[in-house]
């Protein structure tokens, strides 16, 4: 197999169709394919299925398997997870095609993960023929559902089942518009098999896709921003909780500038991507999945808290303060626009004194502008560099040097010794190997200690699976690695063994399309999180703690491991 350097470009191998594509759409599915191209979707991840055989043909023989290019997957859950990972890097959707009800069933957890992570994915489904007279006996009947979209409707932003090629085109335009518009989330368009396969009665009038997918700006009223700025300027102990934000380095720099302007303490969250340099002196504690004691103390001590779309504001305040926070709370978020009655992923209802309905990326520059007239007089001399350019590439400040220092002592074990490995050791060893080379973590396990690795760029860490659905790690890693291909960044995922085993066949897509990726399995041979829960239950019920491993350990046999047995063909 040819080798591709990480900086060698974004292209991946493509299965090249024979023949010459027809000059104009001839079938309903040709219109669908043509619309995907008009929407500039680069890839369509799929597991093939007869329900979308018409679309499959159009992708190959009408579009020539490019723009979008197929990404063949071994499981529908991986197809969506790959799109999820791609969106984590780019902020843009990839298309996914899912076969009938059964393929959609396979994909549901991954769709839920993308939904909870507020990531865009444009999902195509298929069913039918809706017209029962056209169905083949048996198989078309079991793969036809009256309201297939109902399977995922509670956790997609929008869904539709268009009845004609023209309606399908409009549905795809609308789907793209919804999935890309904040707050982002997956969308689902279900294509009737008959609509796909029927000859096109007449050519459709041309359209310009961009006119049907306009950018939507969300700017908060100036007086609300001024009020927030005034609250922050009056604060004696301001604190930022920075949650869901973009991967834009310019927005990252502005968040740093705002924190510096106010001398605000900052906390970030391992549930979502890197949002602030974690070794900056104002970032006062390592990022965690759950609230760390030092973080809780800072939250309880703050007098004004600025939440930039923090994932669980109510729960965080409740845990940190032991009840209702006495701080003034400013919430910057659009997330409420997604909240429905089915899923509780909206978290608890937080106390909020001032609500700014905007994306953090839109609100932060306005807050900085609102501070500008007064901040030079109002702030201490140490804040004079408040609006200075980025320090995101600056070396670790002295105050956190100890926290994030590479701990060489971890390698004190002598060759052939009995030193066993912790997840901390994995981080330390990897960091010693990586040095200062840029990497992106697309996944980290629950056992990861945020203090072991500083994040200094928005692509250093891409966040979690969103919905807590195990098995997402490998697929997200492959999608992120595809998006990072050619960037010079080393894509790295650290997955637990349970996560890896459930999602392992996503790796095939990476090897097939030559997408470089490092996947480290932090293999503790257990569904360890649930061992902790069994220990807790045992203690609460005064039952034997030593039984916590039963029904949890993934061992005996452990032949799935990376042993030399069963090794296949060399690459």
């Amino acid at each position, binding site marked *: *197999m040819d*080798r*591709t350097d*990480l900086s060698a470009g974004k292209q991946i191998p493509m299965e090249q169709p024979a023949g010459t594509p027809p000059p104009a759409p001839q079938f309903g599915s040709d219109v669908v394919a043509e619309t995907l191209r008009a929407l500039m979707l680069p890839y369509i991840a799929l597991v093939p299925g007869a329900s979308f055989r018409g679309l499959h043909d159009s992708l190959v023989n009408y579009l020539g398997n490019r723009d979008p290019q197929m990404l063949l997957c071994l499981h529908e859950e991986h197809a969506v997870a790959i799109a999820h990972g791609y969106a984590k890097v780019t902020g843009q959707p990839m298309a996914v095609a899912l076969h009938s009800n059964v393929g959609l069933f396979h994909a549901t957890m991954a769709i839920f993960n993308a939904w909870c992570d507020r990531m865009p994915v444009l999902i195509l489904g298929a069913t039918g023929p809706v017209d029962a007279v056209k169905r083949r006996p048996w198989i078309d009947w079991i793969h036809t559902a009256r309201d297939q979209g109902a399977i995922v409707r509670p956790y997609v932003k929008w869904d539709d089942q268009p009845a004609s090629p023209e309606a399908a085109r409009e549905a795809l335009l609308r789907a793209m518009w919804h999935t890309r518009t904040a707050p982002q989330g997956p969308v689902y368009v279900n294509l009737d098999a008959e609509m796909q396969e029927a000859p096109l009665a007449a050519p459709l009038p041309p359209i310009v896709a961009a006119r049907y997918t306009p950018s939507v700006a969300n700017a908060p009223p100036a007086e609300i921003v001024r009020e927030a700025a005034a609250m922050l300027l009056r604060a004696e102990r301001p604190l930022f909780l920075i949650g869901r934000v973009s991967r834009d380095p310019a927005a990252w720099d502005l968040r740093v500038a705002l924190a510096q302007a106010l001398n605000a303490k900052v906390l970030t969250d391992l549930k979502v991507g890197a949002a602030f340099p974690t070794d900056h002196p104002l970032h006062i504690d390592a990022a*965690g999945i*759950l609230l*760390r*004691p*030092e973080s809780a103390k800072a939250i309880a001590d703050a007098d004004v808290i600025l939440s930039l779309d923090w994932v669980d504001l109510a729960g965080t305040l409740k*845990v940190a303060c*032991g009840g209702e926070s006495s701080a003034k709370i400013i919430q910057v978020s659009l997330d409420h626009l997604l909240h429905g009655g089915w899923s509780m992923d909206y978290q608890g209802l937080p106390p909020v004194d001032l609500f700014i309905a905007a994306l953090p990326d839109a609100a932060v520059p306005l807050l900085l502008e609102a501070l500008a007239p007064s901040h030079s007089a109002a702030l201490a001399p140490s804040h004079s560099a408040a609006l200075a350019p980025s320090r995101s590439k600056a070396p670790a400040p002295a105050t956190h040097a100890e926290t994030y220092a590479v701990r060489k002592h971890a*390698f004190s*074990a002598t*060759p*052939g*010794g*009995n*030193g*066993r*490995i*912790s*997840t901390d*050791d994995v981080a330390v*060893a990897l960091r010693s*190997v990586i040095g200062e080379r840029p990497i992106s973590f697309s996944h980290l396990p*629950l*056992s990861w200690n945020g*203090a072991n690795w500083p994040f200094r760029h928005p692509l250093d860490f891409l966040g979690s699976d969103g919905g807590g659905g195990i098995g997402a790690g490998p697929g997200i890693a492959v999608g992120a690695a595809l998006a990072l291909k050619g960037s010079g960044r*080393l894509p790295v995922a650290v997955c637990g063994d349970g996560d890896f*085993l459930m999602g392992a066949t996503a*790796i*095939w897509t*990476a090897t097939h399309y*030559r*997408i*470089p*990726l*490092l*996947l*480290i*399995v*932090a*293999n*503790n041979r257990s569904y*360890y999180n649930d*061992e*902790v829960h069994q220990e*807790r239950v045992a203690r609460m019920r005064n039952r034997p703690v030593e039984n916590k491993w039963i029904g949890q350990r993934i061992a005996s046999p452990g*032949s*799935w*491991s*990376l*042993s030399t*047995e*069963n*090794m*296949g*063909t*060399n*690459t």
Partner: protein
Amino acid sequence: MLPPVGSCVGSVTGAQGAQGWGPIEGLDALAPVLEQAVRAVQDGAVAVVDVRVLGGYTPAMTAALTQVGRDRG
């Protein structure tokens, strides 16, 4: 001596064409294997490393999971 370096990854990933290392059970082998795996990725490969880690969380994570008042109810 380093654990064997394979071109695939055992019964789960062996047929998928990735390069695999492991199981890595000793601390002394960890960094050298990761060095090889990173080099492979830089050459364009998909690399999977099976590291046998001890179970356990950070003290902060354990505290958050087990403190009274942070569970249900």
